[in-house]
């Protein structure tokens, strides 16, 4: 057995994330599919000046909301943390995202607080453009034209060109140093399958950074995953860490 991408700990998996790194973080809002243990390990590791690329960075951990009428708790999966925790821990200087969210009344929002204080740069990107910029990086395409955005604030500073009568914007591949993703099952080569809508940005981000690290629910022997059903082939994955049993 010579190829084995499985690591023993989340700490080990994120140990070489350096100050100023650009990091893709999978997931979609408070649904499942967020690499929560990798995020926690990165908080512990403490790298600074990070750029986080995430559809929904999240609101971090809510503590001591201001007094008022009780609010319905947002349902989250077991053992959940989001990339907002990194913002809350002042490790992030730039966020590239589609949906920063809106903090519930009376709740703290690390992203919004720091954005309004001028401490955090936020680049708002249409979700599809974000997905395609990530896919382009993975596929070795340096840039592409997209019909999304002309005539809106998104066009600012971008080259525009008309194809078949439709104005399109030049968008660049979103190059990253690390991708933190969440999958359901992996083998020692790093083949991955996902569950349901938890694939979301995880499947798109796998392989789009120099190093892709997958947090998984199960590790299975090589050959157990149906080759026809593998969603992310092993070539895109560099490290795999097993989540503890809930």
């Amino acid at each position, binding site marked *: 057995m010579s190829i084995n991408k499985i690591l023993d700990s989340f700490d080990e998996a994120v140990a070489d994330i350096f100050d100023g790194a650009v990091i893709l973080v999978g997931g979609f809002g408070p649904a499942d599919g967020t690499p929560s243990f990798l995020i926690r390990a990165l908080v512990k590791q403490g790298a600074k000046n990070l750029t986080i690329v995430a559809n929904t960075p999240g609101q971090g951990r809510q503590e001591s909301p201001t007094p008022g009428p009780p609010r319905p708790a947002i349902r989250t999966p077991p053992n959940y943390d989001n990339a907002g925790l990194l913002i809350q821990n002042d490790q992030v200087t730039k966020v590239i995202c589609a949906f920063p969210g809106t903090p519930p009344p009376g709740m703290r929002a690390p992203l919004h607080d720091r954005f309004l204080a001028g401490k955090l740069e936020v680049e708002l990107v249409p979700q599809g453009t974000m997905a395609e910029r990530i896919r382009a990086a993975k596929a070795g395409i340096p840039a592409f034209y997209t019909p999304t955005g002309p005539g809106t604030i998104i066009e600012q500073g971008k080259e525009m060109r008309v194809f078949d009568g439709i104005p399109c914007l030049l968008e660049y591949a979103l190059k990253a140093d690390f991708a933190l993703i969440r999958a359901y099952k992996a083998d020692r080569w790093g083949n991955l399958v996902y569950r349901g*809508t938890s694939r979301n940005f995880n499947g798109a981000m796998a392989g789009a950074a120099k190093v892709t690290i997958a947090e998984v629910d199960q590790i299975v022997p090589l050959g157990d995953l149906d080759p026809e059903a593998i969603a992310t082939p092993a070539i895109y994955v560099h490290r795999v860490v097993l989540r503890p049993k809930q």
Partner: protein
Amino acid sequence: MKARLDEQTMALRVAREFQDGMVINLGFGIPTLASNFIPEGREVIFQSENGCLGIGPMATSEQEMDFNLVNATGQFATRRLGMSFFDHAESFSMIRGKHIDLCVLGGLQVSEKGDLANFLIPGREPGNIGGGMDLAFGAARLIIVMTHTTKDDKPKVLKRCTYPLTAPGCVDLIVTDIAVIEVTPDGLLLKETAPDWTVKEIQALTEPKLKVAADLKQISL
């Protein structure tokens, strides 16, 4: 005050636009409600931009709630025969590639040219674009469902949008709590009115001049 349509009724009216065989993407709020009212005898497929084609109805019991099966609003959904899952790059290939027959979104403002503003109220930066911009540019047909006026009774159907645009010239039909309005090359065409509402009353709450359809009807469900 005259009665306006409630959200369920607006959703019901929107669902009448669902034609047999359509692939439909529904946005946050009232659009998603419309998935409960597919007209009898029609089969449609809902695409959810977080990576599901053929997503089933919303979960109604605790047992059905599955964190691995949510719609783009983050609500728990259910399985349906024929459904498939994919990643975000694939999902927006469907959207940008004009494979979605119909999209229904909420709106903050719509102009007489069919411009849409729905992701940012100035002063509340940075705003939430989400998948709305790709959908507004990419869907073959776009319906906006919204209240006709703001909470302080200012028109939301305007000559020009004052908020940042989601997409210019993208809206085909506007369904509000008092009217159904089609966006045409010649301007806005009032096609249906809520019960007891006159053309004059609707016009008074609408900034651009409305043309009135020859076959103007009362909204029926």
